[in-house]
């Protein structure tokens, strides 16, 4: 699985809904603390095969993300 790290839970919910509107099956996850810069963060998990598709959707919707 791949994970998009996002700046907040609210933003993660927004991104999840956008990706679902494009027919993707994605879930919000709480990131493991050792994988975050300052602790406590949220992300979206998705199938890595859809990486290019996800990046295109995020760019089209002007979504900022921390990293994938």
């Amino acid at each position, binding site marked *: 699985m791949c994970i998009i790290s996002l*700046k*907040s*839970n*609210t*933003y993660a919910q*927004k991104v999840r809904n956008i990706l679902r509107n494009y027919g993707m099956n994605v879930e919000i996850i709480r990131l493991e603390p050792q994988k975050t*810069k300052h602790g406590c963060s949220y992300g979206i998990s998705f199938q890595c095969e859809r990486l290019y598709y996800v990046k295109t959707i995020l760019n089209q919707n002007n979504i900022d993300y921390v990293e994938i």
Partner: protein
Amino acid sequence: MIYLDNAATTFPKPNCVNEAMYNFVKHECGNAGRSSHKLSAISSEKIFETRELIANFFNGDMENVVFTLNTTYALNFAIKSLAIDNSHILLSDIEHNSVLRPIYSLCKNNNCIYDTFDSDGTNEQIINNIKKKIKKNTKMLVCTHASNVGCRKLPIKEIGSFCRENQIIFIVDAAQSAGIYDIDVKQMGINALCVPGHKGLYGPQGVGFILFNEIIPKKTIIEGGTGIDSFNQNMPEYLPEMHEAGTMPTPSIVGLSASLKWINTLTIDKIRNHEETLYKLLLDLLKTNEKIKIYAMNDYNGNTLMFNINNISSQKVASQLDNLNICVRDGFHCSPLAHRKLSTGKNGAIRVGISIFNTKLDIYSLYDALMEIIISNKI
């Protein structure tokens, strides 16, 4: 009991609000955005859903919805986080203390100055009144959409357009208008719309919000936990988390979500028409009695009406109405500017606030009770 104090808080609430809050508190009430477990996730989803409902209701962006305790907190956050030091702030001459006091406090500490503009006249005259008070360093204009003493509705679309043209931050107090009049933050050029959950939106007490638009505040007012970025000593620099420190009042937010869905089904046109019909009925009845002094502008058709009975203090009348199981509000309604403008004197006035749950029978009963008070006081 006949409840006519709906400008203070609407009562009763729709049943769906009571049920949603009860079910949430009993079965689902985790701390939103704080943990990995199901109840935290459910709470987060409820808050997110409410942000989307609010954004759709006022044509804003979901992430710009900041939850607060009430409108006063919303106005304090908006005014103080957007204010620019050493600037000039303009407000109307009918503002509530929730606008007046934070601006007074701000100007006392930050060397800014404020002035009021005359809210009388046509829309064009009001814009001209504003133009007369504008200075080179006017950076913010704050005004109510509809006065809480029922005397005036301000042309916020025209004021917003003027502010946009002159690069002035425009903050609107929608405490008495949200849920009754259409508000579109983008079309109206509103930079911060401050709204209570518990009045015209028929939600519970304990939740209000700011809907920011086109502008992001640079300062925080309250700092604390946000559930993210925990080792960063600074608050997040993005909305809504920047202004949402600490645990959210999720049960109240859930109640607000239910009430917004209820209003969307009912429509605010239907609510407004019903309330204005009862307002006109009350106005027509009170006009028939020369012992009653009404404080209402000719062009105002709202849901809040203020009056006095000759020579009896508003507190005494409200108390006698309470003895007859009728709830109204007496005094100055935290609006010293509007009361001064209307010359209500030392007694203040009686305020009647009408909701969708009131009936014509309520209005006739109030009028009968007032006649009884006039007779019993030998006026």
